[in-house]
């Protein structure tokens, strides 16, 4: 009895983690465990349009994945997009962060301006780049034709080899500043001693970057990659707005494919299965990454 009362007192005293975590756990359980369970259940069922209900189909959805070329296409598009965007945004983000990391007058304004790209909703960004890359009226098309990169016969977003690049451009534009922000914050909090030592040794700036900045920034980069990577793997808005996955299937990502199966074809079960595969893949990737990069919380 007293043990129980003690336990109760301990629970409400604030010494136990539970009361602090309770609201979080409650919200996450309702909003994420339930959908997860529901999707697992749904992946063994399929919506029967004429019966207006969901019927069990066993493993059909899972086995259908194996022979579905569209599914494999979308996996490869997702991976291409995911890895290319991570690399480009990390490298470019780091370069710009180094460039803007200065106490000189004027740089503050530049940093503030860069955050502007983040507040544009991706759905609108997609429309924006759709206009910019329009084959006939787009300003980017016009410039590229002027300098001879495009010859006027290959619309950027409607040519298999360039469509994904066209979509990526929007992503790079929108999210590189996000990386810049994180990296810049990291650079700000670096200790100054190693740099003074390096200067005394007469190291070149590349050497300084390679031997001091990069190792010190490792954790920041890892966390940035993790946060951005999770979102990149679920990328949807840009393709949805700009290419509808085309031409052909060259910009179909897993999320877009799942969306289409779920909402356009009312194949809820199959859509749920694709979503689960996407979840499993990113779970594996993220955990491997956490293991390798030794991120500790």
């Amino acid at each position: 009895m007293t043990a129980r009362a003690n336990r109760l007192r301990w629970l409400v005293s604030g010494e136990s983690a539970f009361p602090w975590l309770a609201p979080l756990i409650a919200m996450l359980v309702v909003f994420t465990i339930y959908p997860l369970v529901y999707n697992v259940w749904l992946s063994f069922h399929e919506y029967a349009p004429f019966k207006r209900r969901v019927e069990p189909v066993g493993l059909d959805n899972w086995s259908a994945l194996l022979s579905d070329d569209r599914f494999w296409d979308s996996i490869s598009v997702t991976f291409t997009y995911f890895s290319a965007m991570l690399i480009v945004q990390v490298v470019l983000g780091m370069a710009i962060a180094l460039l803007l990391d200065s106490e000189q007058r004027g740089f503050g304004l530049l940093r503030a301006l860069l955050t502007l790209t983040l507040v544009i909703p991706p759905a609108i960004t997609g429309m924006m780049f759709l206009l910019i890359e329009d084959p006939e009226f787009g300003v980017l098309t016009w410039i590229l034709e002027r300098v001879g990169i495009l010859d006027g016969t290959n619309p950027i977003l409607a040519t298999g080899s360039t469509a994904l690049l066209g979509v990526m451009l929007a992503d790079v534009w929108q999210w590189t500043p996000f990386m810049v922000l994180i990296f810049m914050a990291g650079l700000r909090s670096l200790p100054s001693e190693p740099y003074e030592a390096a200067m005394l040794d007469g190291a070149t700036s590349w050497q300084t970057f390679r031997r001091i900045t990069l190792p010190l920034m490792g954790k920041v980069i890892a966390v940035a990659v993790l946060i951005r990577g999770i979102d990149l793997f679920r990328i949807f808005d840009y393709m949805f707005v700009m290419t509808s996955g085309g031409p052909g299937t060259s910009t179909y990502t897993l999320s877009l494919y799942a969306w289409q199966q779920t909402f356009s074809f009312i194949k809820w079960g199959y859509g749920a299965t694709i979503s689960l595969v996407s979840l499993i893949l990113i779970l594996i990737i993220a955990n491997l990454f956490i293991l390798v990069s030794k991120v500790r919380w």
Partner: protein
Amino acid sequence: MRDSDRKRYLAKVVDDYVRRRISRRRFLSTSAQLGLGAAALGSGMGRPFWGYSPAHADDMLQPSKDVLDWVADVSKPFRGTTLKLATESTPPSNAINSQLKPYFEEASGMKIEIEVLPLEQVLQKLTLDIASQLGTYDLYYIDQSWAAFTSRDVFDPREQLADKPDLAMPEWRVEDFLPALVDGIARYEDRLVGVPYDIPIFIMMYRKDIWEDMGFEAPTTLEQYYEQAKAITDEMGPDMYGATGQMKSGHYSLECDWTAWLWGHGGSIFNSDGKFSGNDERGIEAMEYWTRLYQTMPPGVTGWTWDGQGQSIAQGVAASMMSWGEFFPYFDDPSATKVSGLMEAVRCPAPKRPLRTVSDTGYGEIPGVGHQGGSSLAVSRNSKNPDPAWIFMQWATCHDTQVLITALGGGTGPTRTSVYDDPRIIANNRVGPGTTRHLGVVRETIANDMGSEPDLPEWAELSNDTIPVRLGKYFAGDYGSAKEAMDDIAQAADKVVSG
């Protein structure tokens, strides 16, 4: 004032109003001073039940008082009801949502909430509502390609008329809707999936000035159209192209273009066995024709839906398009386009071979060069307020409301026979925004050239994905030949249909 002058002046006033140069109050008072409507209305419309009298002339472009009185009368038990509808952003929905809705709300005491979305999102909302049977929406906006799978979830208006005689609007008859539209849009098997609500349809629109410069007559056959388009592109390209298209990969618009050429070469999407037949001899011939015509279009067409296609005409990049007639009034608006008054509408060129008949095709497909993309409006069976929704639906599709939609909403094609003859519609038969000068062609096209897609539950998937994704691949050069592409589509389509 003489009658002809009066008509011209009214046209100008309507024009000013559509361009928002004058306020609604001034517009109404001016058109009232013109005293138009009374005589003309009486002669043009047969015998409308509420019988316009000169006293009502100032209601010219205001909803008829009799209609609103009827609404007020039957809505008494339903005051305070809220009705919801999800619709594509089309001229009728926009006219109702932004201008006409308040009249209905005031008369009925109901509240109408209209959710305006792009087509794909309407489909998404609709399927979720149907699947969950939760009655989120009281009315459905149903694109003709969804008729099959929604058919069991909506009321057949004929049944509603019979079951609820006390709620029936006087003179609101299904027979007044153009019969071809009722068959092509609303009919699925023996049921009517609501009534036709709007009718975008393919007509031939071309630049009269360019055609005259080139010494051409309006094209009468597909082959002639190709030759004219090619001549223009050869002569004037790359500043001006002879034709244009809506050929964005994976988008419904690409499938729409395809059907027009397919049907125009005597082909069909399905044969009578229900198998995909776009890969037969005629289908391949159509693809070859289309591929040739594609060479005369701006290179950007493969990135465009109807938006880019319309812009290419509006900005003077392309000289003609066989596409949605809804764009025509927009082209005539000098504040938005560079081609106001230069465009001319005619019926689509004649098909190269005799069209297949419905018995040669499958799933109720109706071949015809004038591809229609109409939609119907219907009351959902899942709705918790079917009776008020039915009142609203009758009001939204009645003669008077349709006239106002066409006059205020910018020259969209009406679905009722009587509306085409209404003097308020004829008054707008002049160059300017919201023109109705193309409606004669629209009406003839509906009667003679209209092509309708098949009705089968899998059609949404076929028309939005299976076909346009692979056609997109074909135009991106991923297939060796048209035959190869069509065979691939045939295989994929048959697999989708057989489940």
